[in-house]
């Protein structure tokens, strides 16, 4: 199975820092906007920032594979909002969020920038950890309901003896 993770580079070619950033950006993109906003309130004294790219809503063409494993084809688009900003302290943050919520993209970019600075640990604890916990909980709740609908086959004994 091909596993081309990053710009043609295999997953293993990423540095630990890149892997970590990839993980938090993905987490923020898939997060619940309301929960992210609620967690950001906890972050006091956020530094000022300037926009490098204001939030814009766009489409990403989602691709599938023929037969699940073959050559790619275009399935259809999804909405994504992105933006980039630079903190007063110099760090550049990129924000991506599924859907059309510009506030969510802005907060994702802020967190991305903060995670590169001195407050990374505090941000991880106050924002990223609760977002991850919420995603894991939602995912395992669905998996648990699915598991309850798994068929347990048994064979009826038939015949004379």
């Amino acid at each position, binding site marked *: *199975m091909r596993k081309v993770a990053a710009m043609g580079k295999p997953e293993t070619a990423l540095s630990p820092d890149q892997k970590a950033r990839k993980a938090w950006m993905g987490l923020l993109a898939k997060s619940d906007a309301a929960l992210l906003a609620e967690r950001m309130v906890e972050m006091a004294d956020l530094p000022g920032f300037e926009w490098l790219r204001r939030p814009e809503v766009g489409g990403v063409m989602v691709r599938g*594979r023929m037969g*699940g494993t073959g050559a790619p084809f275009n399935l*259809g688009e*999804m909405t994504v909002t992105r933006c980039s900003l630079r903190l007063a302290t110099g760090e550049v943050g990129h924000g991506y969020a599924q859907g059309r919520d510009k506030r969510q993209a802005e907060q994702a970019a802020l967190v991305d920038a903060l995670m590169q600075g001195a407050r990374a640990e505090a941000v991880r604890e106050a924002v990223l950890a609760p977002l991850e916990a919420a995603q894991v909980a939602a995912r395992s709740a669905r998996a648990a309901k699915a598991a309850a609908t798994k068929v347990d086959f048994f064979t009826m004994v038939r015949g004379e003896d």
Partner: protein
Amino acid sequence: MYVAVKGGERAIDNAHAWLAEERRGDVTVAELTVPQIREQLALAVNRVMTEGSLYDPDLAALAIKQSRGDLIEAIFLIRAYRTTLPRIGHSHPVETDKMACDRRVSATFKDVPGGQVLGPTFDYTHRLLDFKLMAEGEVPEAVEAEPRIEPTPHVTSFLNKEGLIQTEAEGEDTPPDLTREPLELPANRALRLQALTRGDEGFILSMAYSTQRGYGNSHAFVGELRIGKVAVEIDIPELGFAIEVGEVELTECETVNKFAGSKVEPPQFTRGYGLTFGQTERKAISMALVDRSLRSKELGVEVSNSPAHDEEFVLYHCDNIQATGFLEHIKLPHYVDFQSEMELVRKMRAEIASASAKEAAE
């Protein structure tokens, strides 16, 4: 011939005002909200996303509200909105073998790793109206069991091990995109699959059904049907690596057909593939059957003159927005066209009348 006609403006404005009032209906009944539609009419939302070709449940729900539940009108609204979006990029192909499955069934193998998981299905219900839903009632809670953590492998991978099923040709080429370039024939499979995913559910269903009934005979088994969420990853040029930008719910269907073999291929099973947004399994199964049917030529099996074997027939008629645009335009004013036709019919009648008068006189 087209001639500009004026004078309808006031009537049009008033018609639209009345439309807005009718959309709301009886004001003593609570108004529907977009979140209510998104949560409680989710399968309509899924259809609008699939055929509108844009995954955004909130927008699809809004379109359904605006269109008063006319799903093709809602799909039209989504298609129109989609054209206004700048294209950020394209994703890496989604990895459906890593899907978090809500549902996963196989009609070909009883015992498969991961098992037969029914999920929230209408199957095995009695299709009796449930009058309890007319009253506000308690929602029964879904039962939970020990969740499966590891990914669920594709069923066809088991047939693959024995070499009994055709393997899918790999390739990383950029697939054609019919939203960027007009659909031209002959189409390759990537283009056909894109068109079928966007295609009208009713049309694709009927095409698939026709192959089952004998028009381009093929007997398909559902090797696997799965529904669940997959992550969508795109390259971020400014970072030099890819990130997940979201996750989408998909329905995937793989069908298998017996194939007697050809000069170059031994007898084996061939595949049909369906992939759609949301929980849309009727569409995904239909799509897989039609995909397989349209592959007949490349597989070297008999191609009949049945509609489902005719790429041009299927691909040029499956899009309900194109179809409805052409069909419904005939209700718009054609006064001048029709006047010329009327002149022509009068002239023809006059000619016949004078000819028979002349005949009678002779």
